[in-house]
């Protein structure tokens, strides 16, 4: 049976940046134009002072992640009914190819931007401190593609990907990176950034996730505990089931604003991928048939 995936995303500027008159340095991209697949891609530009172009870096990253995932699926694994999907092959191929392609695309976007917008004196000084102009664009990236045969999770840097299964269990498909403590993160701006990616592929044939939550770290850093954060994923899934997409979309900005305002104060971006039909859709279908 065909899986229909839906997406939704929102991003809010954090109080810390509002007070300093800085822009939101997070970015996101979503794709659900085709019923065969959906993509959510979120990125968090580094907030330390010297990363003066990280908002642009995050924008380039979210786009690079989305494009690379869609291209990979279309070229290497188009969904063809009855065709066997070699998951082990894709794990090897995607694990190597996707991070390199994302990194290459991102660097090209940065270099093109540098040509169009030369550095100001202040940016040059920052670039010298950071050892390269590319570093000014430093960012994380979390990208998820959900297809008919498998789901791809790709991440570099901090932020969180949570999966809610049909049995209401919340899990992390990507292991926690032990290097990411305090305000430290891995980054697309480092020279061999492709080596710092985590890329996980999971089959959807038996037990696709009910929902995937993808968020920059401003969201999880706002919660008192890991359990409190996991509860957010469960609550959102329950809202989608009970109230549907439009209702969640109408409330998402205010939820993110409240969470960031009282919690981390950081820019906060949340992306959702979920499977249809939801429980609410079932109810509507049955009511229509009655």
């Amino acid at each position, binding site marked *: 049976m065909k899986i229909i995936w839906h997406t939704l995303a929102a991003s809010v500027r*954090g*109080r*810390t940046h509002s*007070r300093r008159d800085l822009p939101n*340095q997070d970015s996101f991209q979503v794709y659900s134009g085709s019923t065969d697949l959906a993509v959510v891609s979120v990125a*968090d530009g*580094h*907030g*330390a*002072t*010297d*990363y003066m172009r990280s908002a642009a870096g995050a924008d380039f990253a979210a786009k690079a992640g989305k494009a690379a995932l869609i291209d990979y699926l279309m070229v290497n694994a188009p969904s063809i009914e009855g065709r066997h999907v070699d998951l082990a092959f894709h794990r090897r191929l995607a694990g190597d190819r996707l991070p390199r392609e994302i990194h290459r695309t991102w660097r090209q976007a940065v270099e093109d931007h540098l040509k169009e917008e030369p550095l100001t004196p202040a940016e040059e000084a920052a670039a010298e*401190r*950071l*050892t390269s102009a590319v*570093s000014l664009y*430093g960012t994380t990236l979390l990208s998820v593609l959900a297809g008919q045969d498998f789901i791809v999770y790709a991440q570099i840097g*901090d932020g969180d990907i949570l999966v809610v299964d049909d049995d209401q269990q919340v899990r992390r498909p990507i292991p926690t990176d032990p*290097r*990411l*403590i*305090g*305000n*430290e*993160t*891995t*980054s697309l*701006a*480092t020279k061999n950034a492709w080596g710092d990616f985590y890329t996980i592929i999971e089959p959807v044939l038996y037990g696709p996730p009910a929902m995937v939550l993808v968020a920059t*770290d401003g969201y*999880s*850093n*706002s*919660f*008192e*505990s890991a*359990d*409190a*954060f996991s*509860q*957010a*994923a469960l*609550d*959102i899934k*329950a*809202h989608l089931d009970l109230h549907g997409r439009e209702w969640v979309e109408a*409330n998402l900005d*205010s*939820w993110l604003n*409240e*969470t960031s305002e*009282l*919690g*981390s*104060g*950081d820019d906060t971006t949340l992306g959702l991928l979920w499977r249809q039909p939801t429980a609410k859709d079932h109810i509507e279908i049955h009511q229509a048939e009655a």
Partner: protein
Amino acid sequence: MSEAKRPGGPIATRPLHFFWVIDCSGSMSQDGKIQAVNNAAREALPHMRSAAEENPNAQVFIRILRFGSTPDWATREAEELESFQWPSLEADLGLTSFDRALAELETHFHSPPMPDRQLPPVVVLMSDGMNTDPYQKELRSFLNTPWGGRSVRVAIAIGRDANRATLQDFINNPEIIPLEANNPEALVRFIRWASTEPLKAASSGAAPAGAQTQPNANVVLPPPPAATNTGSDVW
């Protein structure tokens, strides 16, 4: 669950633990040094609270570790900055065993007890003297803890006899040098800077781990106030 209630469990600001590590050996009782530390710290507290208010999403906790022959916590546990009152420290701990102070400090820089979601801790070290025992092993051990190496570390040398090399080793960052306070006025200025700027810097945004050439470069500090020559160096 009410209709549009925010998803998720309890929300909280991020903890920021601020440690004062203060030499309370016998030499600090001479020439009014420990009294000057107490006075300067009390004078700096309102400025520290203002700096914290500029970063409302960080909840600042204060701890004071006195050290001499043995380390001694002047604060029984981490105290919230809002209600914190600076105690009257005394310099009655004998010689200067920095190695023991580091070993004691290290016990608080693992995770747990440090919470995973906290901001980088800040450590301000103040000393007027020489370490009487080797400390390099304890310093390496401290810097190798998850939070020790990631802490924001500054140091204030009180008087000309302070061992600047030891303080520089502790900072472990060639971009930051020990501040030299040779009189009470300079001490006031430097304690005020040390109690506000590292706090603001630790509350600022993320940076790549190890991307820069300097250690501890995930947090960048602004330059400290210039040391002005008042012609009245006391220590």
